[in-house]
């Protein structure tokens, strides 16, 4: 619970900061205007500031333009471009959410018949659940919706085993590396740190070997085998991350528990695990995203039927029949939740690593 409330507090702080920015800016401007009138601030000074700020703003907008462009492409119904008969236009001409309907497709819970046998009477009761329609794609003029849900399901069935396997491997190792002294400890740590730096590129280079082994064992096109591979690649970085996090938990807590007579396993379940929830959450998110966003290995190993979301996205760009608006909507539906989660996790480690358990 304390984790959730901390997150809530941070979000509230962010929202307040954003809302207060215009107020601050207005106050700033008023102060400057008064200063210039009284002659305390030379008039050229605020002009320079305004110019610099405008320039910086322009730079920020330019850098983020691709994101804006894809958003407006997704919202423009015709899949049209910025460039139209009336010249460059920055707003979509006929905004519509139809491309997103195409991505998501039907959201219908079909009717089920539930049969319950009544014992001893030989009779049975039949319940029919009603059909629940959240979104009917054909009502919005979409005939053949995308395979998004299919890919999504594949991604889920890859990512969840990845998380489970990875957590089983990472948590005990991180604890031991943080708290115990044993043979080869520093060598293993060094290997893990080294692997966080070079792991990514090595992955693609050894993909040939991996592919050959998987085919020989008949494991290619198996989502579970892919999940184990992802979990293995996630081990070095995340173990090291969680270990660093656990290092920040004061040893005095454990000592207190030992004095109170707690056996080793209770120290872990009642001191270490509760105090490292933030670190655990971060590692959980990172391992989940490993499986969720990886493309190359998934594309090489999986068959069409088992494509995950990134591979599905890549498969779309080669179909020239796909209207541009639909591609953009697909890409955004895939990427936006990840971006939000990732940025949040990213911020949270920065805060999390300096978090001290001493306050309570």
């Amino acid at each position, binding site marked *: 619970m304390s984790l959730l409330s901390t997150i809530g507090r941070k979000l509230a702080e962010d929202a307040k900061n954003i809302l207060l920015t215009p107020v601050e800016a207005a106050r700033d401007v008023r102060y400057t205007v008064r200063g210039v009138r009284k002659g305390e601030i030379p008039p050229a000074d605020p002009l320079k*500031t305004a110019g610099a700020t405008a320039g910086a703003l322009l730079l920020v907008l330019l850098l983020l333009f691709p994101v804006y462009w894809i958003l407006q492409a997704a919202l423009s119904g015709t899949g049209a471009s910025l460039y139209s008969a009336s010249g460059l236009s920055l707003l979509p001409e006929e905004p519509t959410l139809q491309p997103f309907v195409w991505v998501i497709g039907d959201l219908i819970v079909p009717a089920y018949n539930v049969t319950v046998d009544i014992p001893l009477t030989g009779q049975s009761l039949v319940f029919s659940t009603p059909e629940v329609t959240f979104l009917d794609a054909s009502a919005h003029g979409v005939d053949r919706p995308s395979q998004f849900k299919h890919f999504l399901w594949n991604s889920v069935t890859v990512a969840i085993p990845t998380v489970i396997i990875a957590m089983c491997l990472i948590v*005990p190792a991180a*604890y031991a590396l943080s708290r115990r002294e*044993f043979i080869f400890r520093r060598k293993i740590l060094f290997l893990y740190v080294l692997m966080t730096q070079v792991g990514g590129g090595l992955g693609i*280079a050894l993909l040939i070997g991996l592919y050959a082994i998987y085919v020989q064992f008949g494991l290619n096109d198996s989502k579970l085998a892919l999940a184990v591979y992802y979990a293995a690649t996630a081990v070095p970085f995340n173990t090291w991350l969680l270990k660093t996090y656990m290092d920040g938990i004061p040893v005095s807590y454990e000592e207190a528990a030992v004095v109170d007579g707690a056996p080793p396993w209770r120290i872990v379940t009642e001191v270490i695990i509760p105090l490292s929830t933030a670190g655990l959450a971060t590692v959980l998110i990172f391992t989940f995203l490993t499986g969720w966003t990886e493309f190359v290995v998934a594309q090489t190993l999986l068959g069409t039927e088992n494509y995950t979301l990134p591979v599905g996205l890549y498969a779309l760009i080669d179909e020239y029949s796909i209207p541009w608006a639909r591609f953009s909507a697909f890409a955004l539906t895939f990427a936006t939740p990840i971006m939000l989660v990732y940025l949040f996790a990213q911020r949270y480690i920065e805060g999390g690593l300096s978090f001290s358990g001493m306050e309570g």
Partner: protein
Amino acid sequence: MSTVSRLTQRVEQVPFLEREDYSLLFVLPGLFVFAAFMLFPVLYLVGLSFTDAAPANLFAGEGSFAVLTFGEAAFVGLTNYVDVLSDPEFWNSFGVTWLYVGTSVVLKLGLSIGVAMVVTSDRVRGRRIMRSLIILPMGLPAIFTITVWRSMFSSADFGLINQLFRQFGAEPVAWLSTRWPAFFAYNVTEMWLAYPFMVIITVSALQDVPEELHEAATVDGAGFFARFVHVTVPSIKRPVLFAAILTAAASFQQFLIPFVFNQGGPARANELVVVYGYREALSFSQYGRGAAISLIAVLFIGAFMWINVKRGKLADGVSDE
């Protein structure tokens, strides 16, 4: 007697282990899985590079045991390496890769130092919000960013870059099907992909530059440029160098951009070395050759990182305790 203490006693009986070394058991599962899926393929790849493996012979053997004998592939010694190293196609790929490392690192450094200086400048208001906006793309999955940039360079109607060209009266360019424009497109995309990371590092380096140094230099009559060269650069050199080395390694291993853009085309002209190895093996079914190329690439990147880590003493920060 609990399992743990029984285990402890067992451990004590092994000559070179101490009583507390049973903690190693917590680490072993992770280490084992990691080794099985990362280190074993490397060894396998080494073996593969000495054979004439191709789908026909490699997957011919019966049962799982055939993994160890590489199916029915024959041992050919160093033939693959000799072939690769005497193949002009390989040297083209190798050259393009180093060229790419050079151009993209310079571009990435230029852009991110520029952006970082702007968003830390005293003149600019609202710096904090700008900074958090600018690093937003960091959270986007690489495959998203790259497919979007591919569409921007697309020759189809919606291709943004060509739209802008037309708007300003220039001839549209067939970005992805001409060699150097495609290479340029790779660089631009790489720049956009990497800048948030570089900007974060550069900004924190810039914030650590003591204000007094700048003031002292201003008093001595140094202009903006002189201050940049004599105050800013020396103070941010180390962290930026660190970022540059990491990002150079990323450029060297770049796979997704060429692969998604045009499979390293046109006509295999822009295949960076990792793409080259991958395509030789999986698109042209020459596993042995592909393995040799990949290993050469790994050797180079390993040597590159090793030299940098040794010379730049980069490991100091991470080797902890």
